[in-house]
């Protein structure tokens, strides 16, 4: 069981194989992004530049959604970056494992960081404490080498083939459905539920606030709520 993690090469291929199930998640999202970007007025080149430089589906869809609502540029950028703020947490959690890798490798790891690469790698690093640094980075690049091309080709397929989708398919609602599908699995604890509740009620009450700022305010309140509920729950559990 521990054998595949001995060398960088075997760890790479183990990571590559462990990434295979994620294709099922990455392909539909990539295609939806491609289709929606073209619908929103992007050229194929623009949607590919976006999907390759940002490489974060939820943030890309958030940006497109806000743009089509006419939000100002700064709000579009800030809100989409807020969706990605969790990556700083991933980065902090990976640093103790791979912090001694060469800078260029850490930069590559940063660029290639998505929920799937982070979740699988950190789980494997915890389970196999004897992994060498080379095996750890190998494993990470193994998953990433599968996910990245799949994401890029799915986006391209969506952007190029999107206009072949018949008019009766309710495409206008593709982004909301994609996002709504992500919400259920996110509600892992009471703290997540509380954060989602504040996010929804806050966004509704604050929707008249100009420049789409209401969402950003609601999101900050929701983050504070989630963190606070987590603290309360820990305290309750600690009590006898």
């Amino acid at each position: 069981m521990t054998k595949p993690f001995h060398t960088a090469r075997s760890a790479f291929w183990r990571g590559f194989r462990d990434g295979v199930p994620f294709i099922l998640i990455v392909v539909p999202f990539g295609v939806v992004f491609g289709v929606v970007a073209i619908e929103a007025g992007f050229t194929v080149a623009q949607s590919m530049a976006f999907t390759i430089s940002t490489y974060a589906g939820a943030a890309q869809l958030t940006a497109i959604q806000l743009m089509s609502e006419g939000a100002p540029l700064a709000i579009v950028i800030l809100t989409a970056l807020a969706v990605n703020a969790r990556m700083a947490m991933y980065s902090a959690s990976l640093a103790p494992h791979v912090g001694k890798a060469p800078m260029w490798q850490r930069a590559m790891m940063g660029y290639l960081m998505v929920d799937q690469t982070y979740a699988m790698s950190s789980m494997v690093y915890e389970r196999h404490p004897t992994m060498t640094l080379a095996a750890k980075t190998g494993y990470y690049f193994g998953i990433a080498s599968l996910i990245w091309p799949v994401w890029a080709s799915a986006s391209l397929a969506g952007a190029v083939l999107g206009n072949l989708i018949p008019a009766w398919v309710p495409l206008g609602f593709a982004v909301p459905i994609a996002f709504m599908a992500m919400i259920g699995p996110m509600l892992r604890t009471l703290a997540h539920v509380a954060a989602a509740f504040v996010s929804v009620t806050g966004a509704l009450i604050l929707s008249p606030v100009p420049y789409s700022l209401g969402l950003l305010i609601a999101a900050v309140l929701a983050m504070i709520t989630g963190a606070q509920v987590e603290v309360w729950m820990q305290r309750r559990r600690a009590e006898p």
Partner: protein
Amino acid sequence: MSISTTELWIMIAALGLGTFLLRFSFLALLGNRELPDGLLRLLRYTPVAVIPGLMAPQIFLPVAGATGPDPIKLAAAVVTVMVGVWSKNVIGAMIAGVAVLSLLTWLAG
């Protein structure tokens, strides 16, 4: 789209760079510097704090010229979220939502 081509490229560049900096942030710092617990705790809730709020007005608020929310979208949204909560499966929830949306749109003809 109300945004100009220049603005679009600015957005692409800013999001590309900003996202990279968020990802690279702590990997770039040498050593095992720890984040304060309070900050980690806040970051944990970023997606769940933004995405439901992003969707809520589209689902619950009336579109221009209507008196209430669009019942078809509302039904599809409720089913999608419920299937997601129940199955913990993003793709399953997506398929359920698209199915309800297509079926109701077809029935409403």
